[in-house]
């Protein structure tokens, strides 16, 4: 085969592979993704049975343990709207009231049920520490 034709063929194969990869990326990312919502958005529009990624802060006074199930509310970062979450699974060490969390949830009645082991909290190196009190 003459070298110019060979090069064109190689380019064609490479471009086809790149296009296939791009197509697969776009298709799978839209089919496998989870909608990200804040508590206020979730409270207003969540559909039962559908999975969402909930982001916000753990609301004060909302954390309770019932056996292996952790009950807490997630509040908007800026605002007071919150949704109740029941979660079973690994709880990261930094989890506590006021901390930013991300959790995969599904609406079941009035409550949102967290997917097992899907709870993540803000990395501890990035906490904005409260200013210490001068005493």
């Amino acid at each position, binding site marked *: 085969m003459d070298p110019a034709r060979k090069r064109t063929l190689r380019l064609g194969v490479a471009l086809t592979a790149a296009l296939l990869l791009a197509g697969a990326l776009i298709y799978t990312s839209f089919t496998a*993704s989870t909608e990200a919502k804040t508590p206020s958005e979730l409270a207003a529009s969540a559909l039962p049975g559908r999975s969402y990624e909930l982001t916000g802060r753990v609301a004060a006074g909302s954390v309770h343990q019932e056996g292996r199930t952790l009950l807490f509310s997630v509040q908007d970062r800026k605002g007071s709207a919150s949704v109740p979450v029941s979660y079973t699974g690994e709880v990261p060490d930094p989890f*506590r009231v006021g901390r930013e969390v991300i959790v995969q949830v599904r609406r079941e009645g009035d409550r949102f049920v967290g997917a097992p082991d899907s709870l993540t909290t803000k990395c501890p190196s*990035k906490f904005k520490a409260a200013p210490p*009190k001068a005493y």
Partner: protein
Amino acid sequence: MATTGRALLILALACSLYGIGACLAGARLGVTGRGAAWAASGRRAVWVLAGLLTLAFAILEIAFLRSDFSFAIVASHSSLTTPTFYKATAAWSSQEGSLLLWVWLLSVWSSVALITVGRRLKEIAPIATAVLLAFSVFFLGLLVFAAQPFAQLAAAASDGTGLNPLLRHPSMMFHPPMLYSGYTLFAVPFAFAVGALVTRQVGAEWIRATRRFALAAWFFLGIGILLGARWSYTELGWGGYWGWDAVENASLLPWLTGTAFIHSIMVQEKRGMLKVWNASLVLTTGILAIMGTFLVRSGILDSIHAFGASTLGAPFLILLGLMIGGSVYLVVSRRASLRTDYRLESLVSREAIFLVQNLVLAGLAFAIWWGTFFPLISEALTGTRHSLGPPWFDRYTVPFALLLVLLAGVGPLLAWRRATWASARRSLAVPVGIGVATLVLLVVGTDAGRKPLALIMFGLAAVVLGGVAQELVRGTRARRAMSGEAPPAALLSLVRRNRRRYGGYTVHAGMALLFVGVAASSAFQHTSEVSLKPGQHTRIDGYTVTFVRPTAAVGSEKISLGAVLDLARGGHVTRLRTTRGFYPDTTLGPFQAPVSRFFTGEPTSEVGLQAGFTRDKWVDIDVSLGPLQRQLAFRDRQFQAATRVVRSPRQLTAFVDARNAVVGGLARTWVTHPWAANFHLIVSPMVSWIWLGGIVVFLGGLLALWPAPRGAPRRAAAGYRARLGRELADVASARTAGT
């Protein structure tokens, strides 16, 4: 001290601005006469900058070591009880301190680069210096105007809030300096690439001069990523080492494109090819390094690693826009200079494999970038934010990783330019044979066959290790034939004289071990979440796990509630101890919640881990404080009432003693009247291979970075000529056989 620190930062900013002006004047006026004088002045500005920032960083460090709580950053990230080692390293746990570390490291590496290569590349260096100083101006601008590390409190605190307990881990303390060294070192080849493109000096000289910096950047970034993974595994209490979080991915992206770059520059050095690709790759790597820093500070993506409520996103976005726009302009406008007359001669050659490996790495980086930024992409396209989880990332990264390991096994065994099928067969027969034998043994002797992708990874890793071993044996034999040395001496001498090559082989071997560890621990992990009382047991992967007894310890810094567990299998018992540490809540006033405050601060897990060559046994406890809540509330009320009658120091001492006794008694309730605790149990095979592989990669990287002994290049070239001669003889004999 704080005033001096601030003044040093302002001086450093002025010095950087002057340096940029001097360098641009030097570039404009030429490499001799006044131009050379201006360029030299700009170079000296970098050294002065490094000196000023070293002093500024030293002041911050001294403030931390002296617990000077008049510094806001010290008060919010350290305390009197913080151990000295962590006081010294707490500086970069804050946004302000980490930015100062970034620009300080940049100034140091820039100085080293200009000392070692600045004089060699007279035309390129002034522009490169100006680019490096422009990065300094950006970060110093942030430090002077937005995130001030030397800000002071109106009234000095008597104690600080302390370093977050989860950061009290040696890996975590070295992880940021390593990552930042990687990021800032990538700025050096980026700056020299810009210099080369601006001055149209696009040969291999700038690559040869800065190759070691690219390698060092890759090395430090890789070590930083691995240290972060180790910290996550042993400290965070979830048992994983990689979560596909946006910021984790952002550190991986420049490492992947950097890996592609340090391979593809070999093709430009040896064959004069891939100039456009190399320029694009190094510019992309530099952009991705800044993007990693940007993601942590912008808040544009929901990441567990992003600084909350940061206002630094906009400046970073402007910098990124300038870098992307400038890079595209330079590559497009210089495409004629970057054109090469050399073509790929054969698909069976080392450069062809490097090219494919580069495409795979670029594809992998693109897939990870796409997944990371998908929330923004989907929002732009559909109006709603969607995010992708670990299963999506695994779907793409696993096949890419398999391909990469295959190419790492094959690539180094093929000759440059054109390998004959005969020589390729000869080089690949033994490694492929080892790979196939490994597969057969695993299928017959173990249950690895139920996870085909992991099985393929084991086979491919065996090909890599077989290939590296074969090259070492062949090289040692050849060395012995030439010098008559004993085998160990011949091996040492071989490696010593070809450090770059054998360092690369060692890195490949380490990566193979690391991938084996990742594949085995991901595919064959057993995990369990159980609630147990003392004396109860559960089963996991054939082990009977018994909660033997609870433990409690009250220290000056924290209260630890834990458990002793026995894992028994086949008559062998492993004892593991895990604790949950409760630190006091330092944000409360001195008499607020006088008892419960000792249980409501930052909690931290001390994982029970027995690491082994074949498997890790890992356990983490979560002790709920629910059963203590009523007691804690009662004691809080009791001691709050008592505070009203505390009048004298003697009464205060009695109050503190009584409160400490109550706190200790409450903690010991866990031992005297234990309740059920939640345990996370993991039995994971070959996790140690990840860390072992990391150490081998580290050693290989050091070997490749170490300067070659004098005269070695000449001998290496002689070796190359000999090999070329052998391959030409193969071609000739093949042609003779054909005719």
